[in-house]
């Protein structure tokens, strides 16, 4: 039993089996391994397959001999992602896979590695107008601080989670929970978050957010007042007045600036609630799940009697919610009472357009991290040259085949939309830090020039021949093919 305690054995704590794993071996699950003394998640190494992107989305094994038609040898249809590739960190050694392939007559090299990111986090964009919490307030998971509320954007609330201060700067438990939260968000799982003096939310990448137990369906195109502004022209002449019912700001066409500019006549309409500025009303009803986020199901309940001084019989009135999901059309009778009528053809289009402009509410998760010196050293003997090459767009950076946005300025700080990456692309090490795939693709000549580990370049065919632990996935159609050589017009 003595060898159990040799320093090259790690004890995995990912599950209660608590395997002792020796250097170079995997635990009982085959998912966690000891790589150079670090516990690393080693799910099957994922290759992207462009040829298959039109067909079956998931091909669990490529290695059936019958499938080998030589086509793959051309190389341009298979891209080796870094997912499951492992890493050589913390050693100053070439990356685990440096793969050459010829694409459209150009020799390309892809350096494939998994990076261990202790400087990393996620930016969450949550499509909702609901107040989640004040800017700078802490965001907590399982009671631990994992990030904060940052500057809101149009129609969306923004959270910034993770980062080195939460991962390693706080208590052990804060670091562990932060790591777990980031990992789950990046791998597309549901995460519960609570904001100090604010809302509790449940979010997952690419899914509608759930705020205080209520699922957001659609982003409004704007508040009631803004909707008046956007559609006033389309309504003018077809209807005498429009009320856009909204829990936040209900808009009234005839009183609104946009209506005045068009010369819409006063209609004597009167609205419950608190008037803010002309044509804009707060608190027309209580918040709820009815019209425009209010609790009403009959829109007439927010109207007072029409003023006889201005109103006239047969006056045409449209009432619609901010998402266009609810609407009603009325004409006034001789006693100036609204009577519901069929929505005229000419107005149907404008209601449909409001609806069309309300996009589905989603949560977006962008992973953001910085490729440190030792990661870059796995690519080239002179790490700064890689930075320069990336900045000059000679080197394309992808994460699991998904395009990464590179921040201008020093270092290689990148952001990537996790929904464009293959499933479960992220792992962690107990440091705690996240393990994320990263690939650098560039022309072979350029690779030599920047001091790349040219001696370690293996042809793609040789990588494909290693039949162990590999998984072939279809590439996502929305991603540009990572192996396409850079041209001036290529997207970054």
């Amino acid at each position, binding site marked *: 039993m003595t060898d*159990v305690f040799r320093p090259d054995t790690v004890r995995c*704590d*990912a599950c*209660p*089996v608590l395997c002792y794993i*020796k250097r170079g*071996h995997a635990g*009982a699950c085959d998912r966690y391994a000891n790589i150079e003394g670090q516990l690393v998640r080693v799910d099957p190494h994922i290759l992207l397959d462009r040829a298959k992107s039109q067909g079956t989305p998931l091909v669990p*094994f490529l290695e059936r001999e019958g499938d080998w038609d030589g086509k793959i040898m051309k190389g341009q249809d298979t891209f080796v992602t870094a997912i499951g590739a492992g890493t050589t960190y913390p050693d100053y050694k070439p990356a685990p896979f440096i793969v050459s392939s010829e694409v459209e007559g150009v020799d390309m090299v892809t350096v494939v590695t998994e990076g261990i990111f202790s400087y990393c986090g996620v930016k969450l964009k949550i499509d909702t107008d609901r107040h989640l919490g004040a800017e700078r307030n802490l965001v907590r998971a399982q009671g631990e601080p994992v990030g904060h509320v940052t500057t809101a954007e149009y129609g969306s609330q923004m959270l910034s989670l993770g980062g080195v201060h939460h991962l390693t700067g706080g208590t052990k438990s804060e670091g562990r929970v932060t*790591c777990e939260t980031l990992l789950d968000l990046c791998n597309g799982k549901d995460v519960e978050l609570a904001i100090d003096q604010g809302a509790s939310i449940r979010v997952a990448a690419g899914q509608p957010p759930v705020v205080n137990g209520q699922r957001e369906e659609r982003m409004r195109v704007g508040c009631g007042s803004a909707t008046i502004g956007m559609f006033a022209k389309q309504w003018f002449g077809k209807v005498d007045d429009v009320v856009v019912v909204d829990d936040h700001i209900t808009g009234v066409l005839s009183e609104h600036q946009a209506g005045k500019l068009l010369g819409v006549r006063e209609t004597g309409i009167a609205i419950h609630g608190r008037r803010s500025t002309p044509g804009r009303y707060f608190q027309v009803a209580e918040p709820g799940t009815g019209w425009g986020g209010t609790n009403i199901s009959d829109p007439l309940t927010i109207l007072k009697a029409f003023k006889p001084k201005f109103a006239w019989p047969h006056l045409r009135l449209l009432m619609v919610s901010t998402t266009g999901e609810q609407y009603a059309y009325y004409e006034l009778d001789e006693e100036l009472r609204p009577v519901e009528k069929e929505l005229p053809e000419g107005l149907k289009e404008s209601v449909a357009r409001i609806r069309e402009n309300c996009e589905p509410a989603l949560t977006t998760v962008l992973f953001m991290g910085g490729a440190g010196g030792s990661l870059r050293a796995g690519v080239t003997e002179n790490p700064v040259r890689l930075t320069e090459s990336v900045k000059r767009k000679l080197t394309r950076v992808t994460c699991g085949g998904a395009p990464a946005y590179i921040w201008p300025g020093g270092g290689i700080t990148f952001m990537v939309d996790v929904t464009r990456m293959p499933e479960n692309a992220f792992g962690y090490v107990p440091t705690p830090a996240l393990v994320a795939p990263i690939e650098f693709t560039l022309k072979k000549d350029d690779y030599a020039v920047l001091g790349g580990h040219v001696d370690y370049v293996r042809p793609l065919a040789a990588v494909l021949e290693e039949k162990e632990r590999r998984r072939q996935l279809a590439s996502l159609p929305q991603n540009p093919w990572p192996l396409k050589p850079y041209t001036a017009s290529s997207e970054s």
Partner: protein
Amino acid sequence: MREPALIRMLPDGRRLHLHDGPIDLIIEANGPKQNVAAAYEAAARRFVSILDQLCAELPLLRSQARKNSPLPGGPIARRMFAAVAPYSDLCFITPMAAVAGAVAEDVLEVMTCAATLDRAYVNNGGDIALHFVPQRSYRVGMIERPDHPSLFGSLELSASDFVRGIATSGWRGRSFSLGIADAVTVLAENAAAADAAATVIANAVNLPDHPAITRVPARQIAPDSDLGDLLVTRDVGPLTPSETRSALAKGVEMAELLIAKKLINSAALCLEGQTSVVVIPSPSRRARDLFSSSKHNTIQGSLLCNSANT
């Protein structure tokens, strides 16, 4: 950090995927919609406590099973014990030899207790527990090498076959093997029994002291392996056809013994492209035909053993 168990439907919307540490279950049930939902819910509820429960008794489950071993407390651990008990005076075996089958069986039982199902299976990494009502059947494909997943045979199972468990063992699989079989697939009355038997038969397929076979003490690879310092197979070099036949013959002998002891129903053994099939001798049991839908011709007789190149 303890990763929570994963419970999700697979993208096909039909199968349930449960994952926790080394346990990975693919489950499918057929029947009225609400029954399937109830069965899946019961499976998930049961599943989340399984690994912790097993790990609480891990030292006992990793020790050699002997006649006088203390009994474990957990229901799955007890199934494991029961499945390996018949082998305790035959060879070295630990209850871990039946863990995958026992988990599959337990989850299936919870499902069939929760709702009436026409048909269901729980596949725990190739060790499968089956349930079906009369008239329903399952078609099962067999692969010999997980790294070259081509079918070497398939079989059709129905309620009257008395087979409710299928298990496969071999040195290429996830668990260590003392033998050199690429794959031994066993059909038995339950999954835990199939699992234990597949392990024992795969261990028996062997060529002791053959220079082309690389063996390493289990503990050298996995410090906490239940096999301790026993030599486990890490690589099998090229063998001559007659060596392959003689290795397979040892496995066939073991399979025949287990059939005679009524521990298993039938077995298919694969090594270096040769396949031997052993089924129950009595012609009254349909078992004989079970493997006959495989692409190999089975030879009629009291014991059906055949070899074929794949």
